[in-house]
């Protein structure tokens, strides 16, 4: 799901979170490296292709049973090549997402471990009004559940509001909102963060220097995120603001509420993306119908986008092979997909990272990349950060949650390859993460501690 970190005016208003995972890949892509799905994917592919009216045939082994004899040889050869590339790039996409998620988590964990500020309890957000300092367990549980309900309803309201705005084409309003929130994130939160880090390491910095640094950081960030900028810089900025937001959450959400919220939000994510009337799904579909990219400030894109100018000569060169794909692509899930063949070919010619254009009306070619919403980053980091902050088993628990989240991400991407439409990225990872957190903290920790004290090895 696309996740969206919108911080409006006050620090206490968290944003509207939507999380989704969208793939920019072409439909007839067989599943990735995991052979379990190969046969189903192959079958699904076969059906989909037949439905789409194209005359290609999937050439995988699950296919020995597929006997579509209308396949022109040229296209099947092309397709084999594509599948091969797809497979290689399948694993590559997963890694392209692993790296930023890992980086974000590392930043959050490092900060939590070193800077005291983020683990002190200094009050709560207005969205979680019920305090958790109550004497009885039942009361505490009740309070956290109430907090969660409030938080989730706030998120739902904001999401629906955003979708309505999008539907009725109030783009200016949305852009203004996004700009305002990223402005606040970039400047205010960075100022606080920098202040705390400097305090921790006892480094003195005078106000003019601070002003200069933050101004530069913020200005470049605004330009990078909302306008053009080198892809890696944009990715770095998105990672940083996700980390900042996650830190804010970790600080201001009370203990039990945080866990319940994590659970509730993955359920919400599941429903919002998969239910036909879910707001996120409607957003994605509307964006695809209009062939517009979703706002760049909401999504982390691992792909490189070609500018339209550069794409044209490529298009001309590969004209004939594009036709059947276009026909199949019209109603497909992602508006960038029509040029997957081209993009695959382009990949073979050492893709050149060009500047990302914020909103293009036409279909541009793009190296197949996966998009992950920023809220996914944020919640993964919140999980791992909370594990680092509150677990008494320290690093073991953090490590376990980290691996669990990565595996969840892997599985989600696998499902993405199978289902070929926007999927919620939160549920599987967060579920694994939660399971591993609680079990590692309570079960594994005493075991490992006892082993370590006797210096036994398993």
């Amino acid at each position, binding site marked *: 799901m696309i996740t969206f970190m919108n911080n409006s005016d006050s620090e206490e208003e968290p944003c509207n979170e939507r999380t989704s995972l969208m793939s920019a890949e072409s439909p007839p892509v067989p599943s990735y490296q995991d*052979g379990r799905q190969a046969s189903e994917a192959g079958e699904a592919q076969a059906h989909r292709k037949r439905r789409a009216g194209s005359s290609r045939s999937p050439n995988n082994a699950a296919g020995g049973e597929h006997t579509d004899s209308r396949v022109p040889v040229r296209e099947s050869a092309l397709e084999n090549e594509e599948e091969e590339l797809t497979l290689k790039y399948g694993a590559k996409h997963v890694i392209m997402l692993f790296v930023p998620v890992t980086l974000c988590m590392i930043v959050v964990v490092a900060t939590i471990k070193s800077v005291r500020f983020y683990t002190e309890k200094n009050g709560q957000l207005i969205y979680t009004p019920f305090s958790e300092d109550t004497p009885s367990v039942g009361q505490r549980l009740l309070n956290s559940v109430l907090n969660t309900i409030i938080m989730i309803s706030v998120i739902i309201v904001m999401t629906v509001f955003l979708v309505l705005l999008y539907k009725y084409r109030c783009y200016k309003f949305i852009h203004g909102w996004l700009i305002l929130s990223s402005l606040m994130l970039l400047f205010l939160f960075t100022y606080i963060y920098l202040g705390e880090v400097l305090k921790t390491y006892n480094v003195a910095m005078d106000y003019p220097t601070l002003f200069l640094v933050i101004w530069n950081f913020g200005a470049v960030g605004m330009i990078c995120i909302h306008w053009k900028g080198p892809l890696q810089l944009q990715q770095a900025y998105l990672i940083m603001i996700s980390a900042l937001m996650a830190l804010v959450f970790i600080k201001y959400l009370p203990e039990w509420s945080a866990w319940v919220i994590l659970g509730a939000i993955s359920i919400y994510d599941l429903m919002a993306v998969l239910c036909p009337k879910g707001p996120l799904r409607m957003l994605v579909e509307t964006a695809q119908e209009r062939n517009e990219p979703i706002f760049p400030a909401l999504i982390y894109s691992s792909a490189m986008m070609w500018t339209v100018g550069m794409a044209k000569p490529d298009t001309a060169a590969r004209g004939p092979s594009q036709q059947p794909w276009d026909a199949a692509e019209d109603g497909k899930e992602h508006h960038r997909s029509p040029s997957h063949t081209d993009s695959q070919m382009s990949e073979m010619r050492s893709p050149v990272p060009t500047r990302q254009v914020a909103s293009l009306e036409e279909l541009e070619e793009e190296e197949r990349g996966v998009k992950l919403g920023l809220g996914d980053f944020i919640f993964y980091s919140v999980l791992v950060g909370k594990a680092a902050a509150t677990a008494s088993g320290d690093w073991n628990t953090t490590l376990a949650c980290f691996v669990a989240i990565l*595996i969840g991400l892997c599985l989600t991407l696998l499902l993405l390859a199978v289902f070929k439409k926007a999927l919620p990225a939160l549920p599987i990872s967060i579920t694994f993460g939660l399971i591993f957190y609680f079990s590692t903290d309570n079960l594994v920790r005493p075991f490992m501690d006892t082993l370590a004290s006797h210096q036994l090895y398993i």
Partner: protein
Amino acid sequence: PAFGLFLFTIARDPLRIIILIAGAFFWLVSLLLSSLIWFIAVKASDPRDEQLQKGLLIFGVMFSVLLQEAFRFLYYKLLRKAIEGLVALSEDGCSPISIQQMAYVAGVGFGLMSGAFSMINLLADALGPGTVGIHGDSQLYFLTSAFMTMVLIFLHTFWGILFFHGCEHRRWWEITAVVVMHLTVSGSSFCNPLYVGSLVPSYLLMAAAAAWAYLLSGGSAQNLRRFLLCK
């Protein structure tokens, strides 16, 4: 060294990274289950009885070893299916990664995870103030832990190769040899703090496993000589 292994051999290929993380995950799950069993056993027993606790601990360790090997087997099965899928999907009928490479990567995954879990709290504490062995324990605690962890990581790697090879060629004795070796190494760690008893056998076993895995992977004394002399 294990991290160096990772950097040089695995970080290039994304498929290997995924297999690595999945291997680490499987080890983690096995650890989880074994600690669950141990926890239940401890809770169900008398916490004041020292001997019983120690016995339970030993039981826990052995059980964990067996579970780890069981999970290695499961992982092997999974990777077999994955290879079939990969072969099916690739255009020239051979998969982009061979089962031996997978075995190696799986072994490294297991090893890294187990090493991380063994060492990382130690490292974190080592950063802080304190004296080693202040209560009459050995002063070499950190050093020996480091060495032991390293040997265990390497052993896991080699065991991965041996295990998968045994499963491939249906040589049950290889598999049992791996299990026995693992049990021996864990058992030898019971001799701690008499470090001679645990480190030396472990290193010997590691050398043996290394040689065995090397031979299995198609190496030979000649290859080794050629490599060393940079021909």
